[in-house]
């Protein structure tokens, strides 16, 4: 694992505080959260519910702006960027895999995968070509014109992965990617994510509760009470009953 640690840093948060509400209703989600992920690395964020995993993921993704601290993704400081600049940054550099897939049911599989390319301003023809190639890569050739709801959970998550990677983002954000999948399908999906993310110009951050997939991580950051408690390379060091 030391090889990954030696790679240049892809994501870094330092002294990040994040709270919601104020006065008596104030809830602190992150307290001086320091986090690092390296290029070419698949890192998992784990911890009990309410420990701040999703908030930290949102901060890294630029969908939430922290009250204090710095956030740097592939050399770009996100804190201080306007909403418009954050939107542009996400469009160019981020790919998302969501817990509930978030595939648009009224669009075909191919159209769902085309979405990030079209958001980037690619022409329809270019988007079709790239989306087809990506679907072939995730093993869904021949299913392009089907509806997402007609696919199994595993296939839907493959479509989501194809959508997340079709525009070749630097940072892939995965939020509970296997929570809706059985053990074997979850393992297949994680193997695919791991294989597709193996590039020095890419980094994958996965938030998960699913200890069955810890083995796919290069490193695991354990969170507690809004902080990174520790980072381990060996999943066996974690007490999975606490996660």
């Amino acid at each position, binding site marked *: 694992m030391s090889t990954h640690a030696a790679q240049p840093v892809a994501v870094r948060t330092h002294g990040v505080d994040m709270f919601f509400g104020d006065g008596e209703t104030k809830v602190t989600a992150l307290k001086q959260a320091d986090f690092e992920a390296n290029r070419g690395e698949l890192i998992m964020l784990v911890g009990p519910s309410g420990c701040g995993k999703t908030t930290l*993921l949102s901060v890294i993704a630029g969908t939430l702006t922290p009250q204090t601290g710095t956030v740097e993704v592939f050399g770009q400081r996100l804190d201080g960027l306007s909403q418009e600049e954050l939107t542009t940054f996400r469009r160019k550099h981020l790919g998302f895999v969501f817990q509930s897939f978030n595939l*648009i049911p009224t669009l075909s599989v191919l159209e769902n995968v085309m979405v990030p390319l079209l*958001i980037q301003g690619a022409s329809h023809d270019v988007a079709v070509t790239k989306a087809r190639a990506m679907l072939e890569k995730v093993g869904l050739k021949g299913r392009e014109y089907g509806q997402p709801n007609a696919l199994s959970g595993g296939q839907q998550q493959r479509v989501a992965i194809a959508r997340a990677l079709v525009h070749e983002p630097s940072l892939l954000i995965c939020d509970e990617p296997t929570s809706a999948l059985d053990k074997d399908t979850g393992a297949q999906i994680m193997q695919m994510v791991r294989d597709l993310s193996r590039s020095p110009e890419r980094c994958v951050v996965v938030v998960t509760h699913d200890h069955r997939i810890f083995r796919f991580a290069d490193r695991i950051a354990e969170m507690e009470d809004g902080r990174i408690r520790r980072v381990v390379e060996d999943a066996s060091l974690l007490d999975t009953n606490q996660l």
Partner: protein
Amino acid sequence: MYRLALNMLFGDRAKLAMLLCGLAFSALLMAQQTSVFFGIMSWTYTPVYNIRAPIWVSDPMVEQANDAKPMRDTDLYRVRSVDGVAWAAPLHTSFLQARMQDGNFKLITMVGIDADTFAGAPAVLSQGLIEDLRLPNTVIVDEWGAQLMGRVTKGPDGKDVVIPLKVGDTFEVNDLEARIVGICKVRRAFTGGPFVYTTYDRTKLYTLGARRTLSFMLVEPQAGVDPDKLCARIEADTGLKAWTSDTVIWTWSDRSLARNTFWWFWKNTGIPFSFGTAVALGLFVGIAVSGQTFYSFVLENLKYFAAIKAMGAGMGVIARMLLIQALTAGLLGFGLGVGMAQAIGRAMIEKGMPPFIMFPQIFWATLALVLGISLVSAIIGIIKVSRVDAATVFRG
């Protein structure tokens, strides 16, 4: 993205059908009710429409075409002497009772025209000759009147059958015989009664020797004389009121008899209010149903819009997607609604009533209102989506 926006819209067929129903019903109500309203209102200025003459002259107190205040016959000579008048002909209009062969009475509109020139005569006769009006005790009846005044008899199936009046049939007006020598085609009157044409002089007999029978004068300007200017000259020289016969009601000209008649009925009857209520109801139903349906469409797709936002789509792109969806639904709903209104209108016209006139203004106004409804729906959706935090996509 915009093609995908349309695919999102068309992909949800149940929602789309609901949305189109709301918009189409709204467009139908607005277009159909407005067209029937203008159709009925067009009947108010039927005399001007049926009796074509460049200028109408009336008593100065007359406000509209159905409001005849008889003048002296000598007024006709005064008008003829006005500089710029090529000719002037008398016209009589009055409501009278006609007694049919079976003893029934019918309210008729008697129109007396100049026997020398036939100025004011109906343009189209489906039976008979206009010259036969010069024969004693003769009249021409309009097709609707011939039907209305027809004899009712039992058909082979026991149902009532109307045998319309025809050339040669007679009825009585004030105990004087009226023999039909022609059937004409004219637009129906607002009052619904038949038009009975005869000569101006004979109306003096049918009206039992009324002292004044000159309801209007029909005037033709000399070649090159502007009708508006001649109207002003007639008013200045005679103290009477002169009108143009322009039947376009969308005119600012205060001299248009048709326009004044239209607006007189607008101000003095409850017709605009009752039809206006139906149109407002259409608009309200459209906004309520379409807005609610589109809002629920947005709500159902909210997590996908949030995902699209998280993926880096700006609010501008999402707003345009929602606008395209709403306006496309609006256009389709408008097409369906106005198409249905036209179909209903055509069926009505074939049956003869109620009248149906879809002015281009109605078409465009309905389009604007339906697109307005769609725009309101889209704006509601845009506000909702703009308030959604992209970070919500990570909350399961």
